[in-house]
């Protein structure tokens, strides 16, 4: 059994009213323990709605969402599910509750009724994990966006969460903040084996994932390893998504007759290939 299982999941906002809006339509998806899944999709594709189902913030209108075998509809299991699945939201300002960094990280374990000594230990460890030990007693409004998001991640870690769901965590950050947050998430996945569901519309971030799920209009339209997804740039464009720069360039070069192998989407790889081609130039350029 997978860690998270979505079975025929539909969600309709304002059901039965005039402004009824189906955000998810019969989604089937499973996420294994220890996996890093990126969910891609244009605005309004239903990816945030999907994220909120994973820790019972929203309940399915139809179908089921199971986390570690527990159905999110079972009211008794809600707190257990939310402890196991931590959430990080888009706006760094609107998810920090306390006026001091360490108090904020302690908020989750305090709600779970963890003893004070144990909370202290968890807070210290979480701060260390996200490299924010120096900022323990800072006020949140003095931190940068990237730092605030790392505090939000630490807040989830202090609950000893098994899975981290990040809903466009970098959308409001500058490039430096973006790489800080993505770096932290990657490290947590590699070192601690935390399951990551990373929702984004930045292709460069999705490359880090083991698997990519593409959504459009409430449906899962494509699923696969990054190589497969970015190997078909035409399709991505059709769903209003960008293509990673390297994939875009290699596609354009291929059309001009350059013999660049398919499935290149990382800038480093493309550079490597181009350097090799330059070395043996004559043999490569057609016509």
């Amino acid at each position, binding site marked *: 059994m997978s860690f998270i299982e979505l079975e025929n999941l539909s969600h309709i906002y304002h059901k039965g009213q005039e402004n009824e809006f189906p955000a998810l339509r019969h989604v089937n998806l499973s996420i294994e323990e220890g996996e890093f899944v990126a969910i891609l999709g244009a605005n309004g594709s239903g990816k945030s709605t999907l994220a*909120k189902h994973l*820790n019972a*913030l929203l309940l399915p209108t139809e179908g089921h969402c199971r986390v570690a075998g527990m159905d999110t509809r079972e009211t008794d299991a809600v*707190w257990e599910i*939310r*402890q196991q699945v*931590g*959430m990080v*939201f888009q*706006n760094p*300002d*609107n*998810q*920090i*509750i*306390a*006026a*001091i960094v*360490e*108090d904020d990280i*302690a*908020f*989750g*374990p*305090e*709600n*779970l*009724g*963890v*003893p*004070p000594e144990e*909370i*202290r230990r968890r*807070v210290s460890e979480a701060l260390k994990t996200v490299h924010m030990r120096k900022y323990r007693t800072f*006020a*949140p*409004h003095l931190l940068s966006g990237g730092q605030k998001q790392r505090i939000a991640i630490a*807040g*989830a870690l202090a*609950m000893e969460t098994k899975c981290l769901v990040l809903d466009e965590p970098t959308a409001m950050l500058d490039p430096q903040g973006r790489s800080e947050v993505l770096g932290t998430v990657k490290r947590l996945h590699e070192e601690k084996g935390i399951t990551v569901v990373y929702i984004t519309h930045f292709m460069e971030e999705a490359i880090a994932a083991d698997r990519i799920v593409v959504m459009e209009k409430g449906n899962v339209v494509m699923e696969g390893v990054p190589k497969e997804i970015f190997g078909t740039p035409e399709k991505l464009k059709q769903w209003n998504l960008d293509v990673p720069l390297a994939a875009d360039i290699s596609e354009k070069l291929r059309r001009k007759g350059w013999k660049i192998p398919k499935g290149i989407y990382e800038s480093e790889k493309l550079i490597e290939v181009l350097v090799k081609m330059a070395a043996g130039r004559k043999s490569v350029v057609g016509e």
Partner: protein
Amino acid sequence: MLSDITIGQYFPGGSLLHRMDPRVKIVLLFFFLIGIFFFDTVGAYIVFSLLTGGLFYFSGIPMRMMTKSLRPLLWIILFTFAIHLFSTPGEDIARIWMFHVTWEGLGKGIFISLRLVLLILLSSLLTFTTSPLKLTDALERLLSPLKRVGVPAHELAMMMTIALRFIPTLIEETDKIMKAQQSRGSDFTTGNLMQRAKQIVPVLVPLFISAFRRADELAMAMEARCYHGGEGRTQMKVLRVSSIDYVACGASVLLCGMLALLKWNNL
């Protein structure tokens, strides 16, 4: 323009007063405030004045902070002094038109003014040496026995905490909105009161809308982190009554005992 604000009047430090348990500080403050009203003899007021002065000295709070906390109430103190000075019957010092200034009035005026000054200074001593967060925490604990009669102690404390957290954020936002409006030709500094009040509306509307959106998202984030009210909740920072607090309580009881003896022996 709105960037340098401090919330409350906490003055960080490491004095004995700073290290005392905030709950004990609040209780002792009430104890002394009642004491000041109860022991209204000259002797007792000399003791209270020395006590307040001594506590200020040991807390390491600069003198200018002391005067700063009195300034807003200066007029009230002066007004009270004047009323007592002119309206107490007794032996005349001087006569100004229809008002009599009497020796008794002078004495009483000084006495009542001193009482106000002591009340203000002792209360500000609490807020000078206790951070707003600790105060909130202490209030929650002190009010928690009243939960049974329906006082929402935890909810009040949580509201205070969130308010403290979001005041700087909202001030930053106000600043941003004002600049945005100014860059489009809005003028906040000229015109009469009505005109200026009207200029504030385009600042307040977006600020309120944004505050509601923030509240909504914050509630979602709190739920995601298993928040379900105060029940079954623990706290990382446990308030502990230490030896300093016991000594302070002991000394206060002793002091009041002595004052009571003085009062009943009419000294």
